[in-house]
């Protein structure tokens, strides 16, 4: 249920982007979430309209970019895909790995609409 807090943070950030670019509203919001971020895209999608109600992104579509879990092995150097609760090297099986993808929680991009008279 912390997805509502994440949705509120998302609305604040998009609001800032709208201001920065002198736009009137956001029409599409693209978010990249890895499984290890601890945020469930489906729940965020449910919470988003509540957080966005009455804002300049009320009617924006929310899109998710999937970020697969990838680890780099510190022992053999291989980069392999991994399961969320088995972050071991897919090549040699060692657990001394580093996450190189899969824990992202990023606002990737926003599509903005600008008022025709203000658009350059």
């Amino acid at each position, binding site marked *: *249920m*912390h997805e509502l*807090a*994440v949705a509120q*943070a*998302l609305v*604040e*950030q998009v609001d*800032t*982007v709208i201001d*920065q*670019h002198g*736009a009137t509203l956001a*029409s*599409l919001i693209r*978010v990249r979430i890895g499984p*290890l*971020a*601890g*945020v469930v895209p489906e729940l965020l999608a449910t919470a988003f309209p509540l957080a966005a109600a009455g804002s300049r992104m009320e009617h924006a579509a929310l899109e998710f970019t999937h970020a697969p879990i990838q*680890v780099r092995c510190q022992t053999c150097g291989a980069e392999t895909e991994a399961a*969320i*609760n*088995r*972050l*071991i090297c897919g090549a040699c099986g060692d*657990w*001394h*790995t*580093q*996450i*190189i*993808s899969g*824990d*992202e*929680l*990023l*606002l*990737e*991009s*926003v*599509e*903005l*609409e*600008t*008022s*025709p008279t203000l*658009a350059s």
Partner: protein
Amino acid sequence: MCDTCGCNLTPGNKHLAFKPVAKGATAVSVLKGLLAKNDDQAGHNREHFDKRGILTINLMSSPGSGKTALLEATLVALKDEFTCAVIEGDLETENDAERIRAKGVQAHQIVTGTACHLDAHLVHDALHHMTLDGVDILFIENVGNLVCPASFDLGQHLNVTLLSVTEGDDKPAKYPVMFRAADAMLLTKTDLLAVLDDFDPDKAEAHLRNLANPAPVMRLSARKDLGMDAWLTWLREQLAAQRARVAIGQSRRPAIQSDGMKYHSVTA
């Protein structure tokens, strides 16, 4: 990179930032952490701690795994050595803060209402109700929950995750986001192992290693005073390490974030 004034826009990436998609519309590339505002506040909290040389530890676990009991025993054991303070997070009641105060230690209770986790802003507000001068170690007892607290940086230096032996030994496999964030895992209530035939401490540790987590695993019972020495020694070492960092103007974020952030700045 800076997203405030637009100085991160260069001739090389401008086409990414302002890609026309339709008449009157602009696509803007942001690539900013969704919780950036929380993370900024967490960084600010960490500066408060570092300025005073305080070591801050975030305790996380399921409800009822013995976080408060561990704190009670720890505070009594360290009483003559260090000045400690505690921030308690619960949905309701002052009960836990009162248990800590009964040990003669400063405690502030955050009542979250319905929120399932603490965030950096709640902790910052709590700091304003506390006397931090002279404090050596600040413990933050997060809301009992194995899911949400792992996603919010509070400004702590270390995460300690408790797993009581009355829970399953496969909890690290079931809640990987939480256990991956642990800088130390404590297996608590080990005095009960004698009457439990379904919890294998070695398996719990193996599940933690499968998350690529090298964190030390300590087995203890706060109530029966078993295995507490290893935990107290670890705390002393961590405080010494924090003081050494502060002396050279450095800080530390919980283990989980350092590597990940390094790679993200490259891939982003």
